[in-house]
């Protein structure tokens, strides 16, 4: 017997002879993959960190100061929040935000879902209609505001012309009326957003298994029963996502109202984001504006947490 066996696989290459044991090789591979992963997310994470996270953390600090852009930010404790409690404009903005959200969220869900159901059918030209429904979402907000302002014109606008034609003698004043300005904004906002949420719901609808509909049909379920007992339950994860996003976006509404009504007439459409903008950028009270921003943040977070709990309970 020989004590040294000749290699059975022929000539060994230098690399093969220097190769680390399998465990070390796996570890190096894992490190390499991790680095590649980090290199993908790092640019976005850096952007998020420096341009969103850090300013947001500073905002929380500023909410307890009297900072006005220049100079030192003196700590004032909860004085800004106490001031918010007695500030009539803040109260108006707060309730207007809730009012806007209470109208906008259900209306947008209803319209988007209806549109998604309609465009989930096998219709001729459905791709065109899906694209057309998405157009408002990508249209310039200023153009939207100008056109809708014309449509809502109380005396000469086509909307009121139609309302008069069908027998309504005193149609709403829309953007010129304190009572109707917010509903008018909600209508435009819903029209603008419906395409985006329609796409999300459409994607959800297409994941509903066909077999469930067939089984329901076999069991004698009519269209409404199939919608309530098959479509809606299967759509719950998408609906949950849509509701959460819609709620947060409704609480944060700013641009459309700024260009359509600038918060008016009077304070009829003043919302929290615009209150924050006015206090910060028009009146240079950044500390005070930050405290209002914290309240808006808390409002968003509390409602979102409630939605998560509610969704979890329903899932159970």
């Amino acid at each position: 017997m020989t004590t040294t066996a000749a290699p059975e696989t022929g000539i060994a290459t230098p690399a093969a002879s220097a190769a680390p044991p399998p465990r070390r090789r796996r570890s190096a591979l894992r490190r390499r993959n991790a680095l590649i992963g980090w290199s993908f997310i790092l640019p976005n994470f850096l952007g998020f960190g420096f341009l969103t996270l850090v300013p947001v953390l500073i905002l929380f600090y500023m909410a307890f100061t009297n900072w006005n852009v220049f100079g030192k930010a003196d700590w004032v404790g909860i004085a800004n929040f106490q001031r918010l409690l007695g500030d009539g404009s803040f109260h108006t903005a707060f309730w207007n935000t809730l009012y806007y959200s209470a109208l906008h969220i259900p209306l947008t869900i209803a319209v988007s879902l209806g549109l998604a159901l309609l465009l989930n059918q096998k219709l001729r030209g459905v791709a065109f209609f899906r694209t057309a429904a998405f157009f408002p979402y990508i249209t310039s907000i200023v153009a939207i505001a100008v056109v809708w302002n014309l449509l809502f014109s109380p005396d000469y606008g086509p909307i009121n012309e139609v309302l008069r034609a069908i027998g309504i003698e005193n149609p709403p004043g829309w953007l010129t009326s304190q009572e109707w300005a917010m509903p008018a904004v909600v209508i435009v906002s819903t029209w603008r957003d419906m395409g985006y949420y329609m796409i999300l719901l459409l994607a959800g609808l297409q994941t509903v298994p066909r077999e469930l509909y067939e089984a329901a049909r076999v069991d004698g379920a009519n269209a409404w029963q199939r919608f309530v007992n098959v479509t809606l339950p299967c759509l719950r994860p998408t609906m949950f996502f849509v509701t959460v996003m819609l709620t947060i976006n409704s609480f944060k509404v700013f641009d459309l109202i700024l260009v359509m009504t600038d918060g008016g007439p009077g304070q009829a459409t003043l919302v929290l984001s615009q209150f924050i903008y006015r206090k910060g950028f028009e009146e240079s009270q950044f500390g005070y504006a930050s405290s209002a921003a914290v309240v808006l943040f808390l409002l968003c977070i509390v409602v979102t947490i409630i939605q998560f709990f509610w969704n979890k309970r329903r899932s159970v």
Partner: protein
Amino acid sequence: MKRKLAVVVGLAVVASLSLAACSSGDSATTEPSGPVTLSLSGWSLDTTPEFQVLADAFHEQNDDVTIELKEYDPAEYNTLVTADLAAGSGPDIITQKEVKYVTTFQEGGQLLDVSDIELPEGIGGASSYEVDGVQYGVPYRQDSWVLFYNKALFDQAGVAYPDGTWTWDDYDAAAADLTAGLGGAKGSYMHRWQSVVQGFANAQTGADILDGDYGYLEDYYDRVLSLQDSGAQVDFNTSSANSLTYQGEFGKQNAAMLPMGTWFTATLISQQASGEADDFEWGMAPIPQLDSSTTGTDETPVTFGDPTGFSINANIDDEKVAAAKEFLTFAASEEAAQLLAGIGITPALTNDAVVETYFAVDGAPTDELSAFAWSTHDTFPENPTSNKTAAVQGILGDLHTAVMSGSVDVKTAIAEAEDRVANEVGTD
């Protein structure tokens, strides 16, 4: 929106720097060791030539000082300048576009004391840059509100031109007669700005917007609302819905009379020359008065307007201070006034020679009443220099849209505004 977002983010980031430390410049002046370059903030440089004209003229006299213009978006001018100043990269010379922001800059320690600059006698608007007896800027232009009128439309309607003796009652009567006589164009166009009602009310009743009592606005709003109701001028809601511009309404002869600031002169001349506005003969008259005590060319009509001025960045390099002060002195001088008048700008300093230069511009009106209206008036500041002004004006702006849209009656809106000012801002 993206710009606003960028500004918000920018301010938030610089906030962290400002929280950590605050520096204040030493205003002591030292002699420059060589040529000096000063940056000067401006906006819409293509259509606002005044900055370049002043910079070039100053450089011509001072070879070793160059003024470089730093352009900002006019719509977000104050926000962007504020962000730059907070970040320590603000301009050396700050153009004060709106008086209501002067106290923000001053209280933030961004403005250099320029009380040692000797201003020429008779210059208007200097007090708008004074805080606690210290001068923080000098005015170089002072627009005041006058009445622009279309002579061709007056002739067509057979209505006598304004003669300088008008009160608001005369204005209302003329607006009604013009509307009836023109059969299409309106007698009056009052733009949607709150200034168009409140500015005159504040100036002509001697009111102080900071004292929280706004009962004096009632008569002025009643008058404008009745002009709307009678059809003598386009109503606020139609103007908003159609995004009407005052340049278009007057320039396209949709309205025969337009209360507006004197800055409109240069615009109108330029638009008539380019064909953007119709070619018609027009003039300026003193703005109608509350009563006859200030009417007539023997009296001084009362109007309002805010100056535009220059301040010096408090954090400027010491060796630049002397040159910057020289520029401010030049900008307030008669020489600069002549240059500004020559390009259709209303300088803060006016005298006979400046009036002559201004009205020698091709396309400017040539009648004596226009010269009187442009040069003779008691101009009250629209925005008092106070840290409460912006907040109070915001509340009065809400009052304006509520009343003019017809959604709230005048008395209720005034009561709400008084309540809000007392509770949210506090009164002096």
